[in-house]
C-alpha cells in the first residue's frame, strides 16, 4: 500500500539570556557540576520563581519573526512528571495560554513553496543533565544529576503536522534556525544543544484524512540525525503496517551509533501531566504598545534579506539562499557590499573561497578573521589590476590565516602584479625564444599554442604578470615574427 508521511516538529531553543528563567543563576556553559545553582532552580521549599523579563521579550520576538499572534494574556503552568532531571517533580511551562500562537514559516523545496504552520510557542525551563552510569539509559545502574542547566530559559516551538518528507523538515529547520539567529534571541546551534528537535511522525494510507498513530522521536541534535531518523521511522512504521500490525503511540530515542530508534516510554497523554496554573507566578499581560516596540526592533529577517539580494543585488536564488541561511554569512556579505558594488563577485568569493576554507577547517563563521572591509579591499585590488585573480586567492588564504590587510600581505610577499611593459617584454622574448615549436604551431594556425606561451610567461613571473598586458605583448611579438 502507498503511505503518506505526516511529520510535525517540536523545537526547543535555548534563549541567550545572561540568567536563568526564574532565578539569577548564570546560563553559562562549562561550569563545574552544580555550581550554577540556587534554591530556586533546585526547587527547594519556600522559594519563589520570578520571570526574567528578557525571556518574555525574546519569546515575543521569536513569535513575531514567525508570524505569530502574541497573547495579551498568558500564564505559566506546572507540568507534573517524575523524572530526576528536575528536582521539583514538575516543570514550569505554559499549557493552554502560550505566549505565541498561529504563526508560520515559509519553506521552499523541490516541490515548490509551502507554509509550515506554527501551532504555538511557549516559554519553559530547561531540565538538568543526567549522566547515566552504563551504556544506555535502559541498561544503566543509576544516574548522576547536574542541575546547572535546570532553569535555563527555553522556548518550545510546536509546528503543525504540515511536513510530508525529510526534505520539508530540513527546509523548515534551516529556515527556523536562520530566523532565530537573525532575531538574536539564541545562538541556535544544534551541535551545542541550544537548538534541539523532536520529530513526530506517522503514516496514513494515501488519500486517508485521519492521521495515523504517531511516534515521537526525541534527542535529535543534528540535521543529519533528523534526516536519518525520518528515513528509519518511515521504514519501521511501514514494516509494521504492511505486516498487519499497529504502530504504538510512544516516545522513542535515537541511537546515532546504531542508526536506530528505541522505545523509551509509552507517550504520556497531556492529561497525565496534570497541568495546573503555577500559583508562584503571576499572569503576564502584554500591551499592543510593547508588541509593536518589539516588532520595530526586529532586524531584517532571512526571507526579506534573501528577496533583497535577488531583486536589488541581482544574485542567483541559490547564492542568496546559501548566504542568508547563516546570519554570520549574511552579515559578512552586507559588510563587504557596503564597501564594494559587484554583488556577484562578493557572492562568488564567499561561496567558493570562504566557505571552502571554513568547511575544511570545521570552524564557526564567527571565528573568521577577515573583516568585511578587508575583503572589499582585496576585490578592489583585483579590479584595479594591482594583483591578478590567481594572486588574490593566495592573498585571501593569508588573510584567512592571519587577518592581515591585503595591501600589507602583497607588500610583504612582493605579490604586486607586474604591468610594466618593458619588464614584461623581456619575459615575452625569453619564452618565445625558448619555445620555437609553439611559435611554429601558432604561425600554422594553432591558436592554442598562444595559451601555452601565456602560461609559460605567467609561470616565469610566478603569477605576477598582468595577463592582459602579456596577451597584448605576446600577440605583438608573434605578429612581428
Amino acid at each position, binding site marked *: 500500500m502507498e503511505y503518506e508521511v505526516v511529520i510535525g516538529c517540536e523545537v526547543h531553543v535555548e534563549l541567550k*539570556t*545572561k*540568567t536563568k528563567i526564574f*532565578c*539569577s*543563576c*548564570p546560563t553559562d556553559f562549562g561550569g*563545574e*557540576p*552544580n*555550581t*550554577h*545553582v*540556587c*534554591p530556586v532552580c*533546585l526547587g527547594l521549599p519556600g522559594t519563589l520563581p*520570578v*520571570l*526574567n*523579563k*528578557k525571556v*518574555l521579550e525574546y519569546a515575543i520576538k521569536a513569535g513575531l519573526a514567525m508570524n505569530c499572534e502574541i497573547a495579551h*494574556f498568558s*500564564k505559566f503552568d506546572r507540568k*507534573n512528571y*517524575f*523524572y*530526576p532531571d528536575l528536582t521539583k517533580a514538575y516543570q514550569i511551562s505554559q499549557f493552554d*495560554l502560550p505566549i505565541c500562537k498561529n504563526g508560520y514559516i515559509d519553506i521552499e523545496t523541490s516541490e515548490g513553496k509551502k507554509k509550515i504552520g506554527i501551532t504555538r510557542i511557549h516559554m519553559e525551563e530547561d531540565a538538568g543533565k*543526567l*549522566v*547515566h552510569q552504563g551504556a544506555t*539509559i*535502559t541498561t*544503566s*545502574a*543509576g*544516574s*548522576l*544529576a*547536574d*542541575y546547572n542547566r535546570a532553569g535555563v530559559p527555553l522556548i518550545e516551538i510546536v509546528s503543525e503536522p504540515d511536513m510530508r518528507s525529510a526534505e520539508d523538515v530540513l527546509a523548515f529547520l534551516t529556515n527556523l534556525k536562520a530566523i532565530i539567529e537573525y532575531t538574536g534571541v539564541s545562538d541556535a546551534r544544534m551541535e551545542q544543544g541550544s537548538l534541539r528537535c523532536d520529530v513526530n511522525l506517522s503514516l496514513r494510507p494515501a488519500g486517508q484524512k485521519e492521521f495515523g498513530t504517531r511516534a515521537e522521536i526525541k534527542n535529535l541534535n543534528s540535521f543529519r540525525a533528523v534526516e536519518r531518523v525520518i528515513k528509519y521511522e518511515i521504514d519501521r512504521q511501514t514494516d509494521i503496517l504492511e505486516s498487519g500490525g499497529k504502530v504504538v503511540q510512544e516516545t522513542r530515542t535515537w541511537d546515532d551509533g546504531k542508526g536506530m530508534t528505541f522505545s*523509551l*516510554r509509552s507517550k504520556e497523554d497531556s492529561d*497525565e501531566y*496534570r497541568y495546573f*496554573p503555577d*500559583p508562584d*507566578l*503571576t*499572569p*503576564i*499581560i502584554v500591551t499592543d504598545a510593547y508588541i509593536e516596540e518589539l516588532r520595530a526592533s526586529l532586524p531584517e529577517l532571512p526571507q526579506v534579506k534573501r528577496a533583497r539580494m535577488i531583486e536589488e543585488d541581482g544574485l542567483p536564488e541559490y547564492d542568496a539562499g546559501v548566504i542568508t541561511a547563516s546570519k554570520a554569512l549574511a552579515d559578512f556579505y552586507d559588510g563587504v557590499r557596503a564597501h564594494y558594488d559587484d554583488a556577484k563577485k562578493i557572492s562568488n568569493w564567499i561561496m567558493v573561497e570562504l566557505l571552502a576554507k571554513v568547511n575544511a577547517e570545521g570552524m564557526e563563521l564567527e571565528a573568521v578573521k577577515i573583516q568585511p572591509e578587508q575583503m572589499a579591499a582585496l576585490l578592489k585590488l583585483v579590479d584595479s589590476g594591482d594583483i591578478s585573480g590567481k594572486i588574490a586567492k593566495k592573498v585571501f588564504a593569508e588573510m584567512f590565516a592571519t587577518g592581515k590587510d591585503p595591501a600589507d600581505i602583497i607588500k610583504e610577499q612582493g605579490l604586486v602584479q607586474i604591468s610594466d611593459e618593458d619588464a614584461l617584454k623581456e619575459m615575452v622574448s625569453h619564452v618565445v625564444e625558448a619555445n620555437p615549436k609553439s611559435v611554429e604551431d601558432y604561425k600554422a594556425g594553432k591558436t592554442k599554442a598562444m595559451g601555452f606561451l601565456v602560461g609559460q610567461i605567467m609561470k616565469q613571473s610566478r603569477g605576477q604578470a598582468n595577463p592582459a598586458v602579456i596577451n597584448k605583448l605576446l600577440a605583438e611579438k608573434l605578429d612581428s615574427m
Partner: protein
Amino acid sequence: MISKDVVEKVAKLSRLHLEEEEIAQYADQLNQILDTMAGLQQIDTDGVAPLAHVLPIENVFREDEVGECFTQETVLANAPEQSNGMFQVPKIV
C-alpha cells in the same frame, strides 16, 4: 465516578504505593470530593473568565542580572548520595 482503576493510575503517576484497602478508601474519598465539586458545577459561569491567579497581581518580573549561586558543597549538603559533584540517583527506567 472514581473507580479503583483510576485511583491506581493516579497513584502510579504520583509514584505512590497504595495497599488494597487504601485504594478503596481513596476511591471513596475522591468521590466525596467530586460530589462536593459537582455542587459548584451548578453555578452559572457563562461570561466569567477562568481564574489564572488568586491574587490581583500581574507582570512581576526580574531584570536579567546575574546574582549569587550556592557552592557545590552547599548544593549537595543534603544529598543522600553523591558522586563527582553530582547527585547520585537510582536507576530511572
